[in-house]
């Protein structure tokens, strides 16, 4: 049903007027949310969008290029520390600081891409895992970055201090709009990358790197590029994340975070933009909101507390949240390998071919 007749049809941002209409509605909704949602949700949405940026970037690497990374918390940390450090120590304006930090992350991504030329599967996973942990400990050992005690993020000033222009974003709502705009730009950017020659090379490498090389895809360039692009996204996400929090320490970017990022991509759907977005939304919401407050959910909460008292230890309910995320991951892999995006495709197919 999604048959493309020419290239230009394929690269269209909105495939039909229906898609255009609903995209407009979605954008309108996103831009007006702060008018009616309580403030707490704005904070949650900020974190969700940061994770969306990261998951979309990670999906370019994991889903589209077929390389694994368990070290994305490292790039995330480079983005966060880089941005905060450049702004507070060298008075670099925000817009430049976050992009410089993201390019530093991309450079490290390129470095991590080099061993990926030789390594695959579990071996690459180990290398990237080591990378993430190393970054965390190196930052923790350096006093200029606040060591293990963490650093306070400077005020989010969109102006340029050197020119005397200052525009400080203080509230969550202001930050929401900044992050929303960045998210939209980066998501559209990711989609465009995947529709170009570069993106198609990524997919070719995923399907078979030998075949890709035979048809003229330069593996050295495109594999390292995939790492660099993905790290760039993580760097931008990290830079924004720092301002959402206001304060962070190296252990914020631990190994578990890298694993959670991977869970987002797998649960959402590998290799699609929508998959990254859906996964980031679902996992962040579960982890930060639903599973935290499960004891206060009507009926279900009381049931869970009773089960936990009966069968688990004193902190059974809290442990349940980790188990729930693990179960979701296992369930997705067994029943719906395409992730939530796969569910969406099937629903769409069902309605389009109805009543057959």
């Amino acid at each position, binding site marked *: 049903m999604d048959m493309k007749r020419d290239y230009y049809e394929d690269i269209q941002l909105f495939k039909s007027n229906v898609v255009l209409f609903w995209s407009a509605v979605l954008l309108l909704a996103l*831009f007006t949310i*702060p008018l009616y949602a*309580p*403030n*707490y949700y704005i*904070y*949650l949405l900020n*974190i969700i969008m940061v994770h969306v940026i990261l998951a979309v970037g990670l999906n370019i690497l994991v889903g589209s290029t077929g390389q694994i990374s368990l070290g994305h918390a490292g790039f995330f940390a480079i983005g966060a520390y880089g941005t905060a450090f450049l702004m507070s120590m060298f008075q670099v304006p925000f817009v430049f600081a976050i992009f410089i930090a993201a390019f530093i992350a991309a450079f490290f991504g390129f470095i991590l891409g080099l061993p990926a030329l030789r390594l695959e599967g579990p071996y690459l996973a180990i290398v990237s895992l080591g990378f993430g942990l190393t970054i965390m*400990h190196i930052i923790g*050992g350096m006093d200029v970055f606040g*060591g*293990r*005690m*963490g650093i*306070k993020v400077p005020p989010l000033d969109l102006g340029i201090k050197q020119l005397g222009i200052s525009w400080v*974003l203080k*509230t*969550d*709502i*202001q930050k*929401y*709009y*900044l992050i929303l*705009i960045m998210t939209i730009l980066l998501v559209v950017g990711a989609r465009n990358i995947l529709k170009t020659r570069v993106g198609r090379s990524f997919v070719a490498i995923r399907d078979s790197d030998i075949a890709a090389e035979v048809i003229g895809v330069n593996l050295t360039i495109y594999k390292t590029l995939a790492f660099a692009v993905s790290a760039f996204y993580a760097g931008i996400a990290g830079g924004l*994340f720092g301002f*959402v*929090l*206001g*304060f*962070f*320490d190296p*252990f*914020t970017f*631990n190994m*578990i975070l890298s694993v959670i990022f991977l869970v987002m991509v797998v649960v959402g759907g590998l290799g699609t933009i929508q998959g990254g977005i859906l996964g980031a939304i679902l996992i962040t919401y579960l982890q*930060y*909101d639903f599973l*935290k*407050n499960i004891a206060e959910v009507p009926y279900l909460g009381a049931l869970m507390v009773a089960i936990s008292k009966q069968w688990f*230890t*004193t*902190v059974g309910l*809290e*442990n349940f*949240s*980790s188990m729930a995320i693990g179960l979701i991951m296992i369930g997705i892999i067994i029943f719906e390998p395409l992730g939530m995006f796969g569910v969406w495709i099937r629903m769409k197919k069902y309605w389009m071919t109805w009543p057959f």
Partner: protein
Amino acid sequence: MKFRNKALFSFIAVLAVLSIASVTQAAPPVGFDDNEIRIGQWGPQTGPAAPWGSVARGSKLLFDIVNEEGGIHGRKIKYFIRDDMYNPAQTAAVVKELVERQGIFAFVGGVGSATGMAVKDYLAANKILWIGPAAADKDFAFPVDPYLFAVYPLYKDEGSILTKYIVDKLKMKKIGILYQNDAYGKDGLEGVKDRLATYKMSLVAEIPVEPTEKDLASQILRLKNSGAEAVLMYLTPTPAVIALKTAATVGFKPQWVSSNTLSDYPLMFKITGGLWEGVITGAFGEIPDSMNPLMVKYREAAKRLTPEERWGIFYSAGIVFADPIVEALKKVGRNLSTEAVMKALNSFKNYQTIGPKITWTEKQHQGTDSVLIQKCGPGASYITLQDWTTNDLATWKK
């Protein structure tokens, strides 16, 4: 030129949206009503710091007792525990959620420095009280944050008191120190040095330890060669275990003295395979089998209400951090407001339950400088060596 128009248009749109958003946000709901007062605490129930999660559950015991006795002036306490996995991002999220959705009157306890720093300014901006952070970070009490009341004795004061004990009571002259290379360890080191300066003595060995180090052989040999009779530890559990085990294998047997962070003897005894016996530590709460009438009351209540919990030092610490708010709420009476409770807290003078004596004034929110000195006896039992002792060298009191 079409592109430039588009770019200009989107730029203006962005500016407009961000300016609209500058409108101030609505205030969060009030933290109490006629029937209940809502109090919250964050703490690691899962993740790397999960053993400290019992602090938050200990506070629950106190609130359960208070509610059983009929509440405070007709209001029950509704208590929320949120797991932050020791991760500041999650702390900020759970605190915002509690404040903005449930409406919280005050927070008590809260394990961790970084986690606390992530929400300190937010709580102050929303005028929410925070009593007894479960970490001795200088930034909590200095400079004074009117809404934040610290209970935990500073590591610097503790280091000074422990050193005095070693020199005066144990008559040991050669003292070495193993300290974690961060604010925690360096604060302790500073206190030790200040005290030694008054005796015109200096440390025979001063060895920093990275918290991730897994091999302390060279450090222990340096200590051994320095001839240290007593070794102070400002470490986290894992390096402390490695230090004791390494020392045992090279036959180095000094008097080990540690900060209160390692005062959970049953745990330390178990993970060191019994080597913890004889270690002296500071402590900020009565020993678990103390006959102090309040301790007896809490211990009995714990057996009855939460039989599944281990009655340990961190569990009862949860009570120490939660006691002041209950006392202040009782003092204020039926006519409740944040300002009234703040006023009550600022008038605390030598208030003591099962922790140190607490004194707060408007200009001084570090509640105490006192610690107990305890020793691990056979079978991980607790022996009190010295009653509550203040630090006569504490500079912040002057």
